[in-house]
């Protein structure tokens, strides 16, 4: 059964230095508040996993929390580059960043395999691309019935998955709706999970397109209203598009990035 905790407690209990950590949320419901708490608690040597390492991972990478990144698309969506990610890959600042690079289809299937208790997944993927030359977690596999050769990728089983959802009830059952991406798979694939929510309510009114994670499949739930800002939580907030635009300038320079993170993350506590 999920424990209801504060965000600070949740991160302190569930995220350790050196862990493999997946913060998921596909443009919607990105767990920014939890990411900021990881920065505040100064976690180090994390292996960060995420299909779309966007601004939230730019922040974690720039603050030196990560030693490794497993991903399929690293950009500022609708804007351009992630300057902190690029600085780490191109110039090793603030620390070298090892990368393991996949496609979306590959990453999604790696989570599916992890959630399914299987060591690998099979897909039609990567064919003809240069990715298998650089990523050793892409291998051929032969169909035992037809002899056709397909692609195998290993399961992802993070130490911790962190996602943001609209609501939980007091028993810790979690409800999200709208675009729910790969969050169910990430939580089920992980050894431990933390879900931040906009609201804790008495009963979860059913919603079309909902995904429900029963309390017994979640480690901890923390209240974090607005916790997906600058992304959005459908029914609660809209995307702060100006922030994504502004991030380009903030993050382009090491000093302005560091100053911003101190002011807005390290020296501040979000409204959680």
């Amino acid at each position, binding site marked *: 059964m999920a424990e209801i905790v504060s965000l600070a407690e949740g991160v302190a209990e569930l995220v350790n230095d050196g862990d493999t950590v997946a913060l998921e949320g596909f443009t919607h419901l990105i767990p920014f508040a939890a990411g900021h708490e990881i920065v505040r608690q100064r976690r180090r040597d994390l292996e960060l996993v995420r299909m779309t390492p966007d601004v939230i991972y730019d922040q974690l990478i720039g603050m030196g929390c990560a030693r490794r990144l497993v991903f399929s698309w690293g950009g500022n969506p609708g804007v351009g*580059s992630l300057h902190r990610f690029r600085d780490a890959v191109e110039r090793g600042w603030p620390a070298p960043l090892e990368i393991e690079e996949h496609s979306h289809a590959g990453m999604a299937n790696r989570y599916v395999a992890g959630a399914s208790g299987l060591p690998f997944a099979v897909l*039609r993927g990567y064919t*003809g691309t240069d990715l298998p030359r650089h990523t050793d977690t892409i291998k051929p596999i032969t169909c035992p019935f037809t002899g056709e050769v397909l692609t195998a990728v290993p399961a992802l089983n993070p130490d911790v998955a962190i996602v943001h959802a609209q609501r939980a009830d007091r028993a810790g059952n979690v409800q999200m709706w709208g*675009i729910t991406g790969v969050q169910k798979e990430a939580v089920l694939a992980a050894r431990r999970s933390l879900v931040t929510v906009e609201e804790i309510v008495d009963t979860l009114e059913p919603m079309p397109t909902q995904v429900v994670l029963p309390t017994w499949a979640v480690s901890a739930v923390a209240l974090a209203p607005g916790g997906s800002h600058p992304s959005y939580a459908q029914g609660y907030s809209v995307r702060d*598009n100006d922030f994504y635009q502004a991030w380009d300038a903030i993050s382009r320079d090491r000093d302005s990035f560091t100053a911003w993170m101190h002011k807005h993350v390290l020296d501040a506590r979000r409204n959680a």
Partner: protein
Amino acid sequence: MSAEWSADEMMTVAAARQLRDGTACFVGIGLPSTAANLARATHAPRLVLIYESGCLGAKPDRLPLSIGDGILADTADAVVSVPEVFNYWLQPGNIDVGFLGGAQLDRYGNINTTAIGGDYGDPKVRLPGAGGAPEIAASCREVIVIMRQSPRSFVERVDFVTSFGYGTGSGDRERLGLRGAGPQVVITDLGVLRPDPATQELVLTELHPGATVEQASAATGWPLRVADDLRTGEPPTGSELSVLRALKAATGGSRSVAGA
């Protein structure tokens, strides 16, 4: 170029015209999304827009701000998980058209969105990476590419094959067992390129009004072949332009394209 419309507008209109009504189109954010939404708002009202965030049949009345804009989920026929959109909808070949952009394209239609210069481990420019593109390029029945043309972007050979086009030429897709037909058309700010049926090399088949073969050749990093029956496209109609501008205005200002 006419002063009445920009090269980007011409490119977007030309791309939108490629989309047939009633087909299903896997849409990337940026130029592809703009063109697909323009098509749906003009000649192709039953165009099915599929976004990798899991929105099938999205019907936004403005341009989405991201691939996972709430308006896509709100207006979709169905919202499915990300694994499902790739496994059940893209992978089996259910999608007619894949609509891709990129940072580099080569003469055989291969696309690079991963890294430029240096080597993979120590690149000069690190790009966002693959996203959904490798499997879109492989599995959609055909692919439309939309990209601004320049010697830096249209190169002899991409530094990294993120999305496979025709490899080194004719027969490569078949040898690899890829099911989709690959990039059937490339729309640029100067004109339109299509693969030569025999060699699969991209050939200039159409110029936008006001553009010249010399401009196109100068903007191409390989010796550009020009089709014998090179034609000049129609300029944007008043209606196409006004719908395109209204879509952008509704979004709250035009957006730049994701990428380096």
